[in-house]
Structure formats: C-alpha cells, structure tokens
C-alpha cells in the first residue's frame, strides 16, 4: 500500500497544536500573538532565520529517515542517536587524519566513512536481534549511551584539542561541506539530506529490496512463506538505517561545527523518531516534518529573545504536534465534526 501524505490532516494537527500552544501562553500571561509572530519571523522572516531553520532541520531529516527505514522493516531502531554520534565521530576523524585529498573527494569520503561507521554500529544490534533474539529497543538504546560516553571520553582525553573546551581539532578544510547560504551555517548537508529523502522514497517504492523490506515489516510470516529471506532484509534495513544516521552525524560535523564537540547533539537521534512519525513514516513527509521542527527550534530561540517567552513554549508546541499527529483518530473525529457542521 502506498502511504499517501494526507497533507490536510497533518496541517490541521499542526494548526491545532499552535492553537493550544497559544492558549497555554495566554494562561501563563504572555501575549500569544506577539509570541507567535516572533516565532515565525525568527524561523522564516529573514535570510538568516531561514538558514537557521534549515540548518536545524538537516540532522533531524537524516535521523528521521534512518528511523523510518528501520521501522518499515518492522524494526524499532530507537538507537539512531548512537549511530548518529558514531557517524559524526568517524567523519571527524576522517576529516582530521586523512591527508592529501582535495575538496570534494575528501569531504565525500569523510561523509561516506561516517555513514559506514553508523552502519557498522547498527550491525551489532541487527545481528543480536536476528540470531539471538535480543530486542532492538533494549540493545540500540544501550548502545546509544555507549556511543555517547565513548565519544565523550575520546574528545575529553586522547583526542582533545588544546584549550578548555572538550572538542577535537578542526577537520581539514578539504573535508568541510561548504556553506550554501552565507553567513548562516546552512551547508551542503541540507541538499544532501533532501537527496536522501528522495533516495529512500525511490528505494522503498521502486526497488526489489525496498519492496521486500516493506513486506517483511508488514507480515514477516507471509514474507517467509513467499520466499523472502526475512532475516537478511531485517539486517539490511537495520544497517541502511545506521548508514543514514551516520551520514547525518557526519554532515553535522563537516557542515556546521567543523570538529567533534562534546555534547554537540541535543538529541537529534531521538527527535528523528518523533519527526518520522509526524511525517507519517513517509520519506517525503519527513522533509516537511523536519522543517517544521527546525522552525520550532530556530524560531523558538528568537521568540525567547524578543518576547521573554521561555523556550519551553516551543517545546510544548513540538510536543503538541507529536501528540495530535500521533492521535489521528482524534483529529479525524474533529475534522469530521467540522465537515458535518459545514454541511448543516
């Protein structure tokens, strides 16, 4: 079955989330319209704002695609964060230690190696699941913490650059992904992420492994009986999921920070899970959902600065969006109610 985008319903959910958010503001004694205006201006109002929004959207687009790919094969890869960090770390090392390559080659190689790092990091839980029956929710979550603290250790001790910040040296300039909307931080990673969204779409809808992965996700027993090797495709989906997460981590390092900074990810991997659901588990839906979340992050900061509304409000709206989209029956019920009203 093709998953339609069903845009109106999602838009409705988002609108409702904003409405409720405004209500919360009103109750808390802030001027809701002014805050809303600040949020939108901070997200799209200027070239700077737009760049900031898309920069924020980039890593979560990668992680949402990663989660989606696993999910469609029936795997709940909630350890995207770990694969993202490993990818970031490997990309940083490749940028620092590989020498003698010129720009596009070095950057793309570093990015690819980041992806590979994420893929290998996803291979462990994949094999544990398929051969030993260890549930991926447990293993990937645990491995996320392993990745977090291991990379933290490296940038705090053996690989720490001089100075008081826990971070590595800068990667070679040949490994940097160029900025595409100066002076903002928006880098080539963003169009690459969009490209990946279309690639995942093509993969799921137009290829034999994509078809098989979906079949395995929806009914593993029927797939087995129709000759589809279930384990093989689960491992493949898991590894591809880790690969995309790793590319996302690499893109963040090579595009935005230029080095691996301890704690640079505020939980992009975890956000990806929610974004993926808001995007209705459709690769192209993830584009819209990640831009929405990027907007809430970028716009939220501006809103806080201008109106003194705490940043928590944009987090509340994020949470409401997830809630409303995750409750499609509720929304559909409301939608039906409205439609009936209109007919009367």
């Amino acid at each position, binding site marked *: *079955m*093709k998953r339609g985008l069903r845009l109106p319903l999602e838009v409705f959910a988002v609108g409702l989330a904003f409405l409720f958010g405004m209500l919360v503001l009103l109750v808390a004694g802030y001027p809701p319209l002014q805050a809303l205006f600040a949020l939108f201006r901070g997200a799209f109002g200027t070239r700077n704002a737009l760049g900031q929004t898309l920069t924020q959207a980039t890593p979560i687009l990668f992680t949402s695609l990663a989660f989606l790919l696993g999910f469609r094969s029936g795997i709940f890869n909630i350890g995207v964060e770990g694969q993202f960090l490993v990818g970031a770390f490997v990309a940083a090392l490749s940028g620092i230690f590989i020498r003698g390559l010129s720009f596009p080659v070095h950057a793309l190689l570093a990015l690819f190696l980041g992806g590979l790092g994420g893929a290998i990091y996803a291979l462990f839980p994949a094999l544990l699941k398929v051969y030993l029956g260890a549930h991926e929710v447990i293993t990937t979550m645990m491995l996320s913490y392993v990745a977090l603290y291991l990379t933290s250790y490296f940038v705090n001790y053996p690989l720490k650059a001089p100075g008081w910040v826990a971070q590595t040296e800068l990667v070679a300039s040949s490994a940097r992904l160029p900025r595409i909307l100066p002076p903002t931080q928006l880098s080539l990673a963003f169009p690459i992420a969009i490209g990946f969204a279309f690639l995942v779409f093509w993969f799921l809808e*137009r*290829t*034999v*492994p994509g*078809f*098989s992965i*979906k*079949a395995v996700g*929806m*009914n593993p*027993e*029927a*797939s*087995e*009986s*129709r*000759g*589809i*090797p279930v384990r093989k495709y689960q491992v493949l989906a898991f590894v591809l999921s880790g690969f995309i997460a790793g590319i996302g981590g690499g893109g963040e390092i090579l595009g935005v920070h230029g080095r691996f900074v301890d704690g640079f990810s505020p939980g992009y991997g975890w956000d990806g899970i929610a974004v993926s659901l808001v995007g209705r588990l459709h690769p192209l839906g993830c584009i819209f959902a990640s831009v929405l979340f990027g907007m809430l992050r970028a716009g939220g900061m501006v809103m806080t600065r201008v109106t003194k509304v705490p940043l928590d409000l944009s987090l509340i709206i994020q949470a409401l969006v997830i809630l409303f989209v995750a409750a499609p029956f509720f929304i559909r019920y409301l939608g039906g109610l409205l439609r009936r009203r209109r007919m009367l």
Partner: protein
Amino acid sequence: MIALAVRGLTKRFGDIVANDHIDLDVAQGEIHGLLGENGAGKSVLSSCIYGLYRPDSGRIFLWGKEVHITSPFDAIRLGIGMVHQHLMLVPHLSVWENIVLGREPRRGIQVDRKKVLRDIEKLFEETGFQLDLSEEIANLPVGVRQQVEILKVLFRGADILILDEPTAVLTPQEVDQLLATLRRLKAQGKTIIFISHKLKEVFALCDRVTVLRRGKKVGTLPIGEATPEILAEMMVGRRVFFEFPKERVEKGGVLLTLREVSTNPPGVPLKGISFDVRSGEILGIAGVEGNGQSELVEVLVGLRRPKGGAVLFQGKDITHSSPKERIRLGIAHVPEDRHRLGVILDFSIWENLVLGFETEPPFRKGWITLNLQAIRSFARQKIREFEITVPHENVPLRTLSGGNQQKVVVARELAFEPSLLVACQPTRGLDVAATEYLRNLLLAARRKGKAVLLISADLDEIRALSDRVLVMYEGKIVGELAPESDEYQFGLLMGGKGFDEAGVASSS
C-alpha cells in the same frame, strides 16, 4: 405466535443499500435461518434488530407490538440477545465473571457471589449447560467460549437469540455441539435467528429459512420445501452445481514423494509420513484439524525442517531447500490461514499478486529496480482472468471480501504454471459462489496435468474433489480410502480407529 416481525426495513450506507425493504417474520420457538452470501445484508439486518444500527425506514414488532430499538440496551431490555461472530469476552476473567459482567447481582457495592452462583446454577438446570465456572476464559477452546457467550445472553433474560455466523470459528465437532445446544434451547421455547451461509447447517438446524441477496429478501421457505439446489440458487441468483464432474485424467509420473518424514515439536510431531503424488491427480488429506496437517504443509513448502526422512520433488531431494527454491521449482501453496501466511493485508492488490515473484524478470529490471509497468499489467490481467471484484489494483487487500482475497492468493500461486499445488482449506470461510469457483479451479489444474495436494477438514470437499484420500491422525497417515468410501469408514479412521476395524485393506 409471531415473536418478531420486521416490515419494510431499509438501511443505507452512503450509496449502498444494505437492506432494501426487508420483511421478516420469526415465530416463537422456531429456529429461523437467515441465509445469504457475504455482503447480502444478513449482519446489517440483525444489527438493526439488535439496535447497533438505526434503520432508515421500516418498523419492528415484538410480540405484536411495535418497538423502537435505539441501542443494544433497548434490545436486551426487550429480551433480544445477540451472539457475535467475534466473541466479546474478557479473556482473563473467569467463566462466571464473564457471564454476569455488567449485570452483577450486588450486595452493597460487592458482587453477591452466592446469588450469582445460585442464578447460574438455575440457568444451567433450565438449559442443560455444564461448565466449570471458575475456569479462565483464556484457557478455554473457542467452542466453549461460545457457550459462555450464549449463557451471557441468556443470563440477561433473552428470549430471542440472534447468532451471527456462529460456526465460522468452530471445528466440525464444536459445530455439532453448538447445533445440539441450540436445539435444546429451542425445546425450552427460545426463539433463534441463525445467520449462516452454510447450507448444511441450515438444513440440520432450522425450521424455516429466509434468503437475502444483495440487500433484498428473496423469500422465506419452510425447510421441508427447500433443497440445497433451491437455496443456493436463491442465494447466488443462478444455478449452482454441487456435483463436480471429474473427467478422466491420464495420471502422469510421480511428482512428489515423502519418505518417512518426521518432525519435532512445536506443533504436532509427524511420525514417519510417506506418500507419493502423481501429476494429474488430486490427493486429499482428510482428518480432524490439529492432527499434523499444518506441520506437514510446513515441511512441504519449506517453513519447517524435518527431523528425519526425505522430500523428493521431480526426483530431486528438496528436504532442505528454502521456500524460494521450492517456488522456483514449481511448488505453489494456498495456505490455510491466508491472513497469516498468504497475503499482506496492508499491501495493495498488485503488491500481493507479485509477492514472491518480484525478484524475477520481467518484474525486476536491472539490478534492483522493480518494473512497475510489467507488474501492474500482470496484476490487471490476473484481476480480469480470475474475476476479482476490485475497483483498482491499487486498493489495499484488506478492503476485499474473503472470497476475493482468496482469489488473489490463488491467482498468484497459479500464475507461473506450478506443477504442484498444495491447497489447505482452500474454501474455508468463503461463500457458495466463491467456493464453487475455487473448486473448479482445482479441477482445472488437475485437468492440465498438475498435481494437487488438498488438505481440508471439510470431508465433503475432500470426497468431491480427490482421486485418492489419505487420512491423518496424530501425525501419522492411518490409511488410504477411495473418495467413494462411505462416511462411516472415514469417520473411524479420522477418529484414530485402527485400519482393520474400518474394514478396508491397507494400501501399503
């Protein structure tokens, strides 16, 4: 006396008229059959009577007085009870808790257990039920759960019982038990509306029968005036043939051989199964369900590794081949539980039709790309060829009726001229027309020189179609019979009685 009368009842869903001016009279103390194909409007009619749907027009009379039933609460208050096809019990409560749930006799805020047990004992005496009241529902077989469901309805004081396709989920033995229960209730003066599309049960049970077709009432007959041919024609709207003329087909060589195949649990262990299937024959495997048939099929299609023995196909040892290799060799499989093994409900029709063949050219072009054009035109061709009623090949399979879903499975399995078809319960849950269609397909496959292994719990089906019949009991083949052998002999073998007692010579 007329217990329930319905006049001109009409119910629409959008443009679809599910019930079109239906009249129905049910006399007190009769078992009234409500017969029709899937989608004929039986369930809608009963749901209107039970207050689950509000009819758009029409009137309902109870004991001669007009009633307005707006909810199941009204219906229960008026003495109408309904047993749904999908049982509505709480699995982790006990039998008595389920019976009284929502109608608990109380003392203060406590359930008055003594009174409950007294009341149920009384109900048991009146109706002849005998159940262990403290057993948890989850531990009971479906047939017993259904008895609990009936008791629940009786406990609420129902005089008119509506049973919506109650036999669909039961084994043949449980069906017999249910029919006996219903006869007993009838003897106590209860009025029963029995919804079914199975002619055999209607003949065994009902006093009168009303046939619906496409939302309209075709007619009501006393059962004495009906024959299966008449009822089937009323249901389907054309003549239906119950005899399947088996042409003589020249049998070919041995296609499939099982040699001393045995398996380990889980499941019923197979114990040294050996047989041959030849091209151009239908070999039936009869037996009460749960005697190793499912395990045997799993071994044949590659979903279960045997512990010992060998499976040979066209002379090749395929004991350890994967499902994929077997599909490529030409072994097709119509599974017993199609929702579990046969289809992917959330996939579209075309995706289900190509499932398992997507790796083969022309459906694959290049290294990994799907050739959507080829797949879709293949799907459209199969939809035409097998007369699958579906608006478009893109709709999810979930939206199709059971008969059409099964046609999708069969269309796919027969698509590339397999030489062996393993068909398990191929007509279970299907209506008369779809059943007839599928049986004819099996015979057509035989005519084309394919081998068919037919596993079915429906003895009539096995005997009507097979050239030879093997009987399975507790993981063993306990005998071979000709399809013409009488039912008594089959019964003995299926019940595990030894071969000599069945009075036939052993074939081996």
